[in-house]
């Protein structure tokens, strides 16, 4: 039993829905109680889809439990086929239906429906959303790809793009960007799946010479299966960021035996990052959290392409914990592998970052802590499905990333002015373009502003006597711009504790500043 306030991932059947909703001509018959239809709104509201997800829920109730829920399922499957005439059906159970053990796969088989029926075992009590999406896509590829195909030698090799689904973070635009890039490299795209593919398209997966894995969380099991069954190699590099995109290009050229002479698109990121205006980005402290693919990509971009310091890194994708841990080590920090929102909030508060790169959850944590934040990963909200073209992948993706990470930050000269004239009454936090005025009052837990009355409470346990702030020091602390105040306060208290000081004076504050100064 795990206590959960907010979850990073939904249950596995939501992953299956993301696959089904991304595809065309596939229908999902889900054995589920009344209420589970809430999932439709994720797609119709957050992603603004104009069609209902292709899902029929059995919506059984208590009175059905006393009679025959299996019959309810069979009726629903039959009616769904008649109404929607799909080219293939997937069947599965949500958490409650898993408990009543009706075996939707077996039941659907007895109906003899005139289309392929692929059963899913979704393990609602041990697995989560991304696993559900990966398992569903793997079952579909396995069920529909067919026998190994003979492939002719082509002047332009063919690739499948694997992994994009409904409700994915920027999947729509990543597919466009990577298709353009592959075309420029001399590669044609065979099938994009699950997003946009029909069950019939999946029977053509074996025609491609290789697979491009866009999102390993979703596509890896299917790509590994296709490697074995169809002899198709797959790409290991996820092309997010300049460096990764260049590596991806090299990898594709190697797999597809292509010469390195094609003219390729370029990105503004390298020059934008080298131009002097970006100097103020140097060594900004960032905290990164999200799914493993986007976290690993963000770490590399932050470190190598923008020049940030990474003060925290973590993921909720336990399946990829090893890779994220290795990357944390590279930065001399410990990775945070958790799906507990409260752990992440605490880690962010303790790290005093100047920028948070995270999910919708971290956006809200950042609002509470009054930190700038950019979203880099699912789970996302309606505003993370922009009207404009905004990929994360490829060279245009790098442009989008540069803009969306830098815009929440205070500009270089603005930061200097705030530092120089701290007592200007219009320079309080509400005057900032960061929009802190719309944030709610700071939460009482971490990093609340110290006052003379309430002693700071952070990390009190390790020290016998917690140093007290003098009134002057508290006043001085308030002159420090709010976005670095938390860090200044934490550093000063650490400095005082380490030296066994019982009071923090203005002098202590500046001693600590000199001690920790860059």
């Amino acid at each position, binding site marked *: *039993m795990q206590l959960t306030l907010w979850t990073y991932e*939904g249950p596995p059947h939501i992953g299956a829905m993301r696959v089904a909703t991304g595809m065309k001509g596939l229908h999902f018959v889900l054995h589920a109680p*009344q209420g589970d*239809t*809430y999932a*439709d709104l*994720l797609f119709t509201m957050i992603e603004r889809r104009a069609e209902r997800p292709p899902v029929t829920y059995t919506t059984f109730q208590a009175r059905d439990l006393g009679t025959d829920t299996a019959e309810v399922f069979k009726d629903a499957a039959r009616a769904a086929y008649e109404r929607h005439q799909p080219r293939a059906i997937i069947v599965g159970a949500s958490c409650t239906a898993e*408990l009543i053990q009706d075996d939707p796969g077996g039941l659907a088989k007895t109906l003899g429906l005139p289309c392929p029926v692929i059963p899913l075992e979704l393990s609602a009590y041990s697995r989560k959303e991304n696993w559900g999406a990966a398992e569903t896509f793997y079952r579909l590829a396995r069920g529909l790809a067919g026998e190994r195909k003979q492939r002719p030698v082509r002047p332009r090799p063919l690739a499948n793009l694997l992994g994009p689904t409904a409700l994915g973070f920027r999947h729509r635009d990543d597919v466009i960007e990577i298709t353009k890039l592959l075309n420029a490299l001399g590669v044609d795209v065979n099938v994009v799946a699950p997003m946009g593919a029909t069950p019939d398209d999946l029977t053509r997966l074996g025609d491609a010479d290789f697979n491009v894995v866009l999102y390993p969380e979703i596509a890896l099991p299917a790509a590994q299966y296709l490697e074995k069954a169809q002899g198709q190699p797959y790409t290991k590099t996820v092309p997010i960021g300049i460096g990764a995109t260049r590596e991806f290009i090299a990898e594709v050229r190697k797999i597809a035996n292509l010469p390195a002479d094609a003219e390729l698109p370029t990105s503004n990121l390298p020059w934008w990052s080298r131009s002097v205006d970006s100097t103020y980005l140097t060594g900004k402290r960032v905290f990164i959290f999200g799914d493993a693919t986007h976290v690993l990509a963000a770490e590399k971009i932050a470190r190598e392409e923008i020049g940030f310091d990474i003060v925290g890194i973590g993921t909720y994708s336990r399946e990829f914990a090893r890779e994220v841990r290795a990357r944390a080590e590279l930065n001399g920090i410990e990775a945070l592998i958790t799906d507990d929102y409260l752990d992440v909030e605490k880690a962010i508060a303790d790290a005093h970052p100047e920028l948070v790169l995270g999910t919708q959850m971290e956006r809200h944590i950042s609002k509470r802590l009054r930190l700038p934040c950019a979203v880099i990963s699912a789970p996302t909200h309606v505003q993370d499905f922009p009207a404009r073209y905004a990929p994360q992948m490829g060279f245009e993706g790098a442009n989008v990333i540069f803009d969306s990470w830098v815009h929440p930050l205070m500009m270089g000269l603005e930061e200097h002015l705030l530092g120089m004239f701290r007592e200007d009454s219009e320079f309080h936090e509400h005057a900032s373009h960061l929009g802190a005025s719309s944030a709610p009052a700071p939460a009482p837990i971490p990093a609340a502003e110290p006052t003379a009355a309430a002693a700071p409470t952070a990390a009190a346990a390790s020290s016998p006597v917690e140093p007290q702030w003098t009134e002057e020091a508290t006043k001085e602390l308030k002159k420090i711009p709010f976005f670095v105040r938390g860090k200044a306060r934490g550093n000063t208290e650490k400095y005082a504790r380490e030296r066994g000081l019982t009071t923090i004076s203005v002098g202590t504050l500046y001693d600590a500043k000199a001690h920790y100064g860059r």
Partner: protein
Amino acid sequence: MNESVSIRPHGDGPAVHHERGQRSVFCGLTGIVWLHRKIQDAFFLVVGSRTCAHLIQSAAGVMIFAEPRFATAILDQRDLAGLADVHDELDSVVGRLLERRPDIKLLFLVGSCPSEVIKIDLVRAAQRLNAKHAPKARVISYSGSGIEKTFTEGEDACLAALVPTLPAEPATAAPSLMVVGALADIVEDQFAGLFKDMGVDARFLPARRADAMPAVGPNTRFILAQPFLAETARALEARGARRIAAPYPLGAEGTTLWLKAAAETFDVPAEKFEAAIAPGLARAQMTLARQREKLGGKTIFFFPDSQLEIPLARFLAREVGMKPVDVSTPYLHRALMAEELAMLPAETRLNEGSDVDAQLDRVREKRPDITVCGLGLANPLEAEGLTTKWAIELLFTPIQGYDQAGDLAELFTRPLARRSRLEV
């Protein structure tokens, strides 16, 4: 599955069709989204699955920036396989929770589909935990599970669970008025003021604080402010209270009739009643007159959702001249709805239950001017050229009483106005 039969009505009002099929509606857990804000020192702990946590978070997504007073104790493989004792696990989760949130005075253990299917006895768990944590924090339980409860029935179950814990009012006490159903604070304040002007001291269930819940006894007269509180009404009656029958306080007329039913029960003199309601009633009539110009003659279709459908259809038909062509409600409690049904236009097609595919076929055939539906259906129907209003907004917005009557009508005007503005 898909069946529709009609029976003759027992009393006044349109014939009722009964439908059974796929139900596209929230489960009873959803009520937590507003209840946890209403009772300021209560916490709702769902004992359920990852789906339950995901549902509440999806329905409540907009409120995420405040630390919520709800959480889910997610059952996992160990709990199901019996490797962990569910009750021990629950005790430790509750212990940690109350330690983290010492401000919590009332903890609801909320049952879910999985907890009911595997028969976790939350009533016993609540008794055990209450013995341990009361009086600092009282613990009670109710079920919000989708196999038992449809959307607003969750609030009904929650309030019904509160009733046995209400303080007893002695049989010798003077008659008292209890208003039942979660209302926006501003609406509650307005009603309290109106009753005060009539010389009646009204108390509200639920109160805003756990230790301020109203007492109940044989001299309690209660009036429902929400139409979906059948179980709560029964529980109050079991404690000797008596229900004041009335339509629901939606619109100027609805609010007047609702207030009047209470006033008559307490023998408020007619002049005093008229004087109390006159300013609010005049304001409501003025704002509704403007809305009538925009909504008069327009047709409206209700998918089954919150059980507010019938009072809303009555209000829109009688006060702004709309034509309800098809009104579905998940459940129809005839006794609680008698006054409403009598005022609903006889030609309205009225349905109890749900068959979403059949309803979609009908809405496409009838092409109403406005369709009230759940969030899962709204954009798909808009894409088909229909104008929609999200049903859940009617529970998240103050809509009861005189000073909200215009706002309520405006919720239906806005989608139409928007459609007529856009040239893209």
